[in-house]
């Protein structure tokens, strides 16, 4: 027996679902969000314990296949050199993200026009700018105005401290006359909206027990719930239902006990990330939609984009920050825009890394023999612990249709829903960019005084950014949703997560995901009278 119908059903309570709910709440419509995971308790985060590194690698691992919580679903990623990093719970990936919070650049929306690759977005930076501003106000962003790599943007709180690591890296960039700037971060450096300031706990990537890092469970969701949005946890959606007219009519979901439910809705909004959204759409087959819902273009699940990352680290004779500070530090966009002489198109952002934690340092060096066991262990360990820092390069990933999310024919989750299967290869453009980034990073670290510099690619577990698999566009043959996030095929079905992305830019996507979700919500509110036309 289906439940009473709601006006708006949101599937997923991560970055995009939270921002969308927050905006849509002022319509006073009956809005329900179904989230397969739980609310998180800050007291459960690893940093409350001495064995925080082991907990971060286990129950708070970024890999759902390693984490294996009851709220996770398995992913077949044997066909990808980059493995998915996600989190299933209220806040989604923002629970475990570092809080790097760059915006897109104006050029990121015009990649086809400027560089002849990918496609142009159907919107531009100026369209999204007010939604970036609104997202920033709710999130709380620290940084420094005046970055020459960006158009002017407001900065709400002072930047995170440079620390010893940031000072080393900045010295290296300056020696090369290359750009650097303190990172924009979704980390409060002052008390903000009832949240405390960062106290440099250093375990940002396994949840912020201080509440300074802006995960959407503590930013957008409290406001949305106060405004009347209902958020139901432990509700795993299997498929979106449709009526005889080809309109979305709601969803089938399982509760925590595995019981099946149906919820009716006038509008359905997908906010499950670039893996979860195509998974559900492809699993929503019907007579009217035999290839999955909203898939007349054949593009649902295609054009999967990660950001291939390189990683480079160097060692110093004096101490640096190590894990005694927030993950975010400084960034450089010296190599962001295309320059033909480099041999690849588009570019990347360097993001500084303060250094590894003690157990990680021990394991890395003992397993490779660089720090011996036995008598020489302690002296050798003290030459590496809190002595290493470096950077990663987040490289723009071009959309390619052969990079896909499909439904695995065999692997299923605990409710019997087919698992997603990834097939992804790094392009030649990505490889050239990654190799270039390593050589430039080595130059920075050498100039900073580092020795024993090491670099490599990709970060295997670095599939943090899941994009492109329900792309927006004006042509229904070349896109899944229109320029304001509505499905071309199903006029009451919307997508608000990273699946929307046409191109990936060379920056972390969360700030843009939240801005896009606010933009889609506002677009809907402006058209309520004829939303399905």
């Amino acid at each position, binding site marked *: 027996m289906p439940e009473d119908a709601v006006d708006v059903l949101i599937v997923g309570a991560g970055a995009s679902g939270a921002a969308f709910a927050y905006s849509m709440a002022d319509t006073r419509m009956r809005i329900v969000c179904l989230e397969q995971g739980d609310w998180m308790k800050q007291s459960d985060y690893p940093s409350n314990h001495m064995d*925080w590194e082991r907990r971060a690698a286990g129950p708070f691992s970024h890999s759902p296949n390693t984490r294996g919580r009851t709220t996770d679903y398995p992913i077949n990623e044997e066909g990808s050199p980059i493995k998915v990093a996600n989190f299933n719970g209220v806040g989604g990936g923002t629970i475990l993200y570092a809080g790097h919070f760059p915006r897109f650049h104006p050029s990121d929306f015009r990649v086809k026009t400027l560089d002849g690759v990918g496609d142009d977005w159907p919107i531009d930076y100026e369209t999204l700018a007010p939604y970036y501003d609104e997202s920033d106000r709710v999130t709380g962003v620290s940084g420094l105005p005046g970055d*020459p790599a960006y158009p002017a943007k407001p900065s709400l709180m002072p930047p995170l401290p*440079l620390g010893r690591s940031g000072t080393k890296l900045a010295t290296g960039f300056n020696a090369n006359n290359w750009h650097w700037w303190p990172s924009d971060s979704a980390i409060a450096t002052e008390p903000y909206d009832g949240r405390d300031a960062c106290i440099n706990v250093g375990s940002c990537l396994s949840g912020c027990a201080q509440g300074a890092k802006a995960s959407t469970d503590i930013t957008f969701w409290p406001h949305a719930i106060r405004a009347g949005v209902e958020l139901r946890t432990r509700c795993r959606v299997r498929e979106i239902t449709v009526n005889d007219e080809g309109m979305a009519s709601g969803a089938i979901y399982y509760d925590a006990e595995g019981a099946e439910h149906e919820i009716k809705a006038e509008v359905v909004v997908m906010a499950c990330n670039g893996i979860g959204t195509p998974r559900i759409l492809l699993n929503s087959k019907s007579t009217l939609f035999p290839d999955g819902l909203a898939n007349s273009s054949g593009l649902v699940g295609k054009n999967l984009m990660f950001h291939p990352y390189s990683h480079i680290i160097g060692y110093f004779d004096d101490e640096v920050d190590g894990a005694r500070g927030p993950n975010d530090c400084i960034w450089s966009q010296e190599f962001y825009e295309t320059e033909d002489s480099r041999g690849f198109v588009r570019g990347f952002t360097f993001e500084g890394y303060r250094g590894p934690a003690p157990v990680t340092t021990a394991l890395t060096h003992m397993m490779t023999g660089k720090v011996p066991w*036995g008598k020489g262990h302690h002296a050798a360990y003290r030459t590496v612990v809190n002595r290493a820092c470096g950077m990663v390069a987040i490289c723009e990933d071009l959309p390619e249709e052969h990079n896909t999310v499909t439904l695995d024919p065999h692997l299923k989750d605990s409710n019997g829903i087919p698992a997603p299967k990834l097939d992804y290869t790094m392009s030649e453009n990505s490889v050239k960019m990654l190799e270039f980034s390593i050589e430039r990073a080595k130059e920075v670290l050498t100039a900073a005084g580092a020795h024993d510099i090491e670099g490599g690619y990709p970060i295997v577990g670095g599939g943090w950014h899941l994009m492109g698999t329900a792309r927006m566009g004006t042509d229904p043959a070349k896109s899944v949703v229109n320029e304001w996030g509505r499905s071309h095929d199903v006029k009451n079905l919307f997508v608000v997560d990273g699946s929307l992305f046409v191109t990936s830019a060379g920056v972390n996507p969360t700030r843009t995901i939240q801005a896009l979700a606010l933009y889609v919500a506002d677009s809907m509110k402006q058209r309520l009278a004829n939303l399905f036309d």
Partner: protein
Amino acid sequence: MSDSISSSNPLTDGDQQTLRILAGLLIPADAEFGVPGADDGDIFDNLLALVLETEAGAQDVKKHLDELNARAHLRNGATLTALGEPDQIALLSDSASTEAVQTLIYYTANAYYQDGRVLESVNMKSEPPFPGGNDVDQGDWSLLDPVKERAPFWKRV
């Protein structure tokens, strides 16, 4: 000494003794740096707890301890615990690249570098990261001066 094995702990007293010796060889005490070894009471108790946290993990470690004892028998005609330290170290050296030793390094390093005394010896706090946090210098912001002088270089569209 008991060889009893409970259903929840597959490691015998003998296994635990072997494990303790190996932990102490992997990361020994060091007076110069003022640190205990991984065979120290509190650290080893933590190590054992980590090993026993899952049945699969405990069985895996037992398998590796058996392998190392089999090697000891082959080389020296005795169990590892019966060998003198030089022979124990030689056995460990010869086995360094094996999964057995790599697994023991994993547990030993995890237990050792969670210990407050050890962390203090490398200028870390002897408490969980939260709620104390850390002090991070602001650093030298004058390094930004040359960058501030650059003209905006984002690409206009």
